[in-house]
């Protein structure tokens, strides 16, 4: 979902994207999101008082896909990226999945809802960069051990791009499928501004610059070309180096129509 910040006469025009943390039926319906103060927009949000109105658009984008069978899932979150893992954990639990958490942050005060994590999950491991809470280090330092101990079947991850890349690598080395939710800067959140694109390989093997707000933010980790994020890979559809034959283009067009 995305939230307008700064009020009607604000000089900050763009919405701020946040993950839905929880949806409850209380008080005629409540949507919860967790956020860390980072810059002017989140500082403004933090100043809001109860009963103030927020201008919200959502839900946006594709949610985490749920497994058909009750498998073992490890959920990996970095910083505020932990937020969407909690409702995911609940849904997985309802399907009978085992859930284990690995949550990382820069320091203890940035760890999101450690207690809730412990309550929902079978196990919850924490890492902080400065060692002020849990293990000192990064989530991937403990992820391999958790996967082995929990006999995980699938990995879900949300957080900054370098973390997602590392998690995808660890999952790959254990032969596990991984779903990652990316946090690319987003101006509109609804697919019209083209600011949130990342290179993703399609089922057809063609790399496309896809909008993470509508085609994501959840992708299969193996499909994201992490090394090329922030670039246009030369072989991406429509890149200067891309040699699309008319046939390929016709196929593209047919695919999109379907």
């Amino acid at each position: 979902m995305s939230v307008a910040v700064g009020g009607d006469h604000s000089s900050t025009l763009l919405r701020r994207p946040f993950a839905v943390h929880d949806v409850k039926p209380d008080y005629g319906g409540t949507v919860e999101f967790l956020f860390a103060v980072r810059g002017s927009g989140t500082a403004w949000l933090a100043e809001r008082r109860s009963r103030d109105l927020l201008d919200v658009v959502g839900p946006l984008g594709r949610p985490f896909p749920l497994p058909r069978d009750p498998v073992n899932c490890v959920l990996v979150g970095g910083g505020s990226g932990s937020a969407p893992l909690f409702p995911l954990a609940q849904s997985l639990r309802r399907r009978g999945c085992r859930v284990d958490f690995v949550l990382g942050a820069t320091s203890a005060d940035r760890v999101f809802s450690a207690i809730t994590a412990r309550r929902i999950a079978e196990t919850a491991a924490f890492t902080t960069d400065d060692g002020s809470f849990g293990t000192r280090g990064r989530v991937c330092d403990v992820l391999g051990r958790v996967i082995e101990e929990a006999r995980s079947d699938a990995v879900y991850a949300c957080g900054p791009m370098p973390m997602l890349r590392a998690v995808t690598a660890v999952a790959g080395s254990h032969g596990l499928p991984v779903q990652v939710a990316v946090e690319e800067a987003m101006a509109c959140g609804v697919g019209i501004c083209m600011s949130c694109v990342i290179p993703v390989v399609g089922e057809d093997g063609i790399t496309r610059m896809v909008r993470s707000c509508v085609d994501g933010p959840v992708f299969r980790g193996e499909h994201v070309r992490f090394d090329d994020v922030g670039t246009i890979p030369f072989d991406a559809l429509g890149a200067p180096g891309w040699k699309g034959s008319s046939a390929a283009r016709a196929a593209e067009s047919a695919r999109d129509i379907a």
Partner: protein
Amino acid sequence: MNADLRTRLGSLRLPNPVVTAAGCAGSGRELAQFFDIAEIGAVTTKSLMLEPRAGRPAPRMAETPSGMLSATGMQGPGIDVFLQRDLPWLLSRGGRAIVSLAGSGAGEFGELARRVSEAEGVGAIEVNLSCPNPADPSGRHFADDAAQAAAVVQTVRSHARSDVPVLAKLAADVPDVVELAGACVAARADGLTMVNTLRGMSVDTRTLRPAVAGGMGGLSGPAIRPLAVGCVYRVHEVFPEVPIIGTGGVRTGTDVLEFMAAGASAVAVGTVNFADPSACVRVLREFTEALDARGVSRASDVVGAAHRPGTGV
């Protein structure tokens, strides 16, 4: 009372003057989740090129005071996919399409216009003159050189169906916008869209590097509205008969009034769609209310009012 909102851009008749700005409304489908796109004047497509295009690397945008810088590099599916996939969808929903074209030279623009002319139901063609001219060593835009711009417009006009109006989209950061407008009109543009984004940059003060990959980006949003209104005013003063789509920072219904008073016959909503996906219909509603509050019965009466002494309407 409800004012008569109809407006004309050459031979194109629109039910009301609020359209989307090129590149700020996707294919129309995304916004259709938020409102019925037949309700607004028209949807302007992003600028289409002959081939699919991956655009520029991220970060592609940065927020600036009351505006944003963007550099998407015109990522898009290419003209053929648009004509086969997006246009029929738009028409099936009762929408009107203004098709924006971007070429790397007059020849490519001509080919684009030819392909568009084979399709049915295109309301107007908009020629994006703020594309880098590959023939210019310093990478300037077609719009930076009135003669180059006119050559492009002329080619598009001669390849397009005669019943489809051709609009030249001008930039504000050009040597002389009135001269540029004159050159395009002489090259038989049926109307003008003003203005495109202005070249600017911002520095990320955490990294001290340009905030948008590649350095320069295009500035848009309410911040540039006075520059856009100024261009419309100056061009309408000299060419009062040429229809203009005013664009640049439209946020509210009174902004529509401002552009129309300066000389626009229609107004395109761009960046503000990103902040408010239902902006177009909200702006249209506010505009209607503003006309009613002033007792104006026809929107077209407002066009150019700021040029007339007295209270205008």
